[in-house]
């Protein structure tokens, strides 16, 4: 196990991934905490609140992923969907 872990690229090792995640959490916290020192002059008042950018970014991504997921049930079709009605697939 140890040997296999050593043989893979250092970025792909579980221990490195764990370290990267820790650094990422730290960066996230820092980006919000920095607002205590640097004031964000918002254009519309709300965007100057503490952590607004963070919450807005996270929540709009959540909304978009959920919207995509929901629309996916309606819109997703198998890759060969259009092939049935058009020219015959020549690699089938």
């Amino acid at each position, binding site marked *: 196990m140890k040997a296999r872990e050593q043989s893979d690229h250092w970025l792909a090792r579980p221990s490195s991934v764990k370290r990267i995640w820790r650094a990422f959490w730290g960066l996230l916290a820092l980006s919000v905490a920095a607002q205590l020192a*640097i004031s964000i002059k918002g254009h519309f008042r709300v965007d100057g609140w503490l952590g607004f950018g963070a919450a807005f970014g996270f929540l709009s991504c959540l909304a978009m992923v959920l919207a995509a997921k929901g629309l996916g049930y309606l819109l997703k079709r*198998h890759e060969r969907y259009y092939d049935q009605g058009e020219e015959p697939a020549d690699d089938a």
Partner: protein
Amino acid sequence: MTLELIPPGLALLLGALLIGLVRGALRSVVVLAAPLLTLWMAWQVPDGVAFDIAFLDYRIEPLEGSPVRRLFAIIFALMAFVGGLYAYRHARWHELAAAHAYAAGAIGVCFAGDLITLFLFWELMALTSTFVIWSGSQRRTRSAGIRYAIMHLLGGVILKVGIEGVAVHTGSIDVQAMMVNNFDTAMILIGILINAAAPPVSAWLSDAYPESSPTGSVFLSAFTTKTAVLALILLFPGEPLLVGIGLFMVMYGIIYALLENNIRRILAFSIVNQVGFMVCAIGIGTEMALNGAAAHAFAHIIYKALLFMSAGAVILRTGLNRCSEVGGLFRTMPLTAIFGIVGALSISGFPLTSGFTTKTLISQAAADETLEFTYFTLAAASAGVFLHAGIKFPWFVFFQRDSGLRPKDAPWNMSAAMLIFAFLCILLGVAPDLLYRLLPYPVDYAPYTAGKVLFYLQLLLFSGLAFFLLLPLMKRTETISLDADWLWRVALLGGARAAYAVLRKAGHALEGAVNRVARKLRKLAARHMSISPEDGRSGVFARTWPIGATALWIAVLLTSYVFVYYL
């Protein structure tokens, strides 16, 4: 005739012709030299109309310069050069020739002083870009190219209808700002918006571009939609309709890219998303907004081509097109991965990249006009861009899981092309004044204030968090997503087939009825007009009648005629 009077696009057009005629090293020289010559010539074009030619009752102005026209021509020429460097060892000669002519068309549109010239180059682009698509060897290349050509020729016809109308009704064919208040200008706007991949016909882009060759999609990503952006800047600045259309495109691109599995189709949807930012800015129409649209188009061509180059190198080396088939490629393609990540960070608008210094111009313009909804939608979209292109593309292609693939890194010329564009992405992010100086209006804007940087860092970092937390919801499936083109690819085709079946049945029924009537008539005729072969009895018209009977009948006929005449 001095050099300033030669339209720069001609150099590329000449290059396109020469590529087919020369071979070997000389062809490579032409591929690389023609765009450089064009770039230099585009830089020299002076402001104003250089010369005009009388054509029928109109003044044709093939060469009109202005800062925004030069800006677009310069980036198109640069794109043709770096794209040529990327492609020249791998693309077939006809793809390179078509790409040169395609770029010449785009540059021709840039300097078109009148609508007739604009239309001619517009159509040159439609034709030559179709040949770029057809140079691909994907399974669906042929049919996708046909659908692409139909859409663009249709768009050309609509544009032409509008141009004819404007020419007849106003007597002027100048390229100048218009209002959408009559049929003619509405047709021009629709014709241009089709090329901008606006709804409801956005699907032509994501349908056709991923079916081209790995090198062809690099050229395709740059010219068509961005000439449409320039045409909108020149013809419809401040048209309020464009704000809504732009916001729709921004969201459409994100949602469809999130659903997509094909690597290049993700990037294609992301073009629609990015062009949406520009269209929205043109709709806002202030000097700041138009600067933003132009700057963003400039930066976008660079980072989007870089992303397509990175994807193209992966497809060239692995032959695979889908996210679900690749992964973990950073091990053996580190350069391609790094360049792809630079492109991804730029498109997401990370501070110190060109995306940040150009996209925030548009946000600032929305804020200046207190367009609150527009501003926050664009902010959400900026987060969404990071989600669908900024992380999704590099993550699924280069990381994700170990697919076991160990392809070689990109060939040297591809790496060199990517290096140039990656360098420019960062250069324009670090020294934005280089670009701001070229913009159509004076720029009074400081992109790097501590507050703004912090706001965007929060926005983007937490979007990244959302991506990794929501990964289970974004599992790749081997699917495509239905789009408005379903209406013609399935509904219209099905309708046409059903109508054909109904008509064929009706035709058969009619034929049967006619045959039956004819048979009956024949039988009737046989009975009354011939002598039966069996019993020798004659039909009523086949008998021999005595003269007396005939005379009697004629007398009756004449009497009744005289009677009726005097009545």
